[in-house]
């Protein structure tokens, strides 16, 4: 039983983090809070990938001694590469989302999505600024 938990708990915690981020995306009205939830969601996916890449007894995928490196066990470097690019993309996503939120606040005067919905329903022809 203990062994089973030790084998799987990294994946479980990644899923729990995903649930927290997903909850924030659905239930929070504040748009900045939704972006924070999106960040947590993304990070949970990264954690899942990096957990898959771990190899027992492996070391970081950097070759120190090129002569005998066939004998050394390395961690799987491929998920590291995918996540490296994904982190930089995630900051771009955050930046574009924040830009859109700033623009929304300039136009509607609110960053709560239910208030924006009310304003939009009351004034159907809201001209853009």
């Amino acid at each position: 039983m203990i062994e089973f938990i030790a084998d799987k708990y990294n994946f479980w915690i990644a899923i729990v983090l995903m649930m927290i981020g997903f909850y924030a995306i659905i239930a929070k009205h504040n748009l900045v809070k939704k972006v924070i939830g999106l960040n947590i969601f993304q990070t949970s996916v990264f954690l899942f990938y990096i957990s898959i890449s771990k190899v027992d007894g492996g070391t970081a995928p950097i070759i120190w001694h090129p002569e005998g490196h066939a004998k050394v066990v390395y961690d799987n470097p491929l998920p590291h590469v995918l996540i490296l690019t994904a982190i930089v993309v995630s900051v771009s996503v955050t930046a574009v989302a924040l830009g859109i939120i700033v623009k929304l606040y300039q136009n509607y005067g609110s960053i709560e999505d239910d208030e924006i919905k009310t304003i939009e329903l009351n004034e159907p022809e809201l001209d853009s600024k």
Partner: protein
Amino acid sequence: MKDDVILRTITKFMLPFIQIFAFYTLAHGEISPGGGFQAGVIFGASFILIALVFGKKEARSKMPRGVNDILLSTGDLIYAFTGLSCIFAGGHFLEYGELPFHSAKEGNHIGMIIIELGVAITVAAVMMTIFFDIAGKDDD
């Protein structure tokens, strides 16, 4: 934060080290953790630090908007033209081994360094653009 003497002095003292660390990260990307993305982010962060401590005007005088916009596309173009020059050298797109150096290994090595430089330039310029455009007030 413009009036804080300690903050301004420490920032002036630290800035060269931050930027040299960015170049170190770029140059040592092959033999230690690091590479184009990290170097670009650190280099962009040094300009963001200038903007936070000395104000946006001062940072813009160090990195004018026109230069920033040109750098933004330069890095991506360096990357793409490295790929294209591999085609002209007789290989596939981004096949650095075909570049005209002594061996395929050396071609790979130099091609990787060039495209890491391109990635670093783009990422640094993008980080600066994002910060300067999102931060609205002149000093915060």
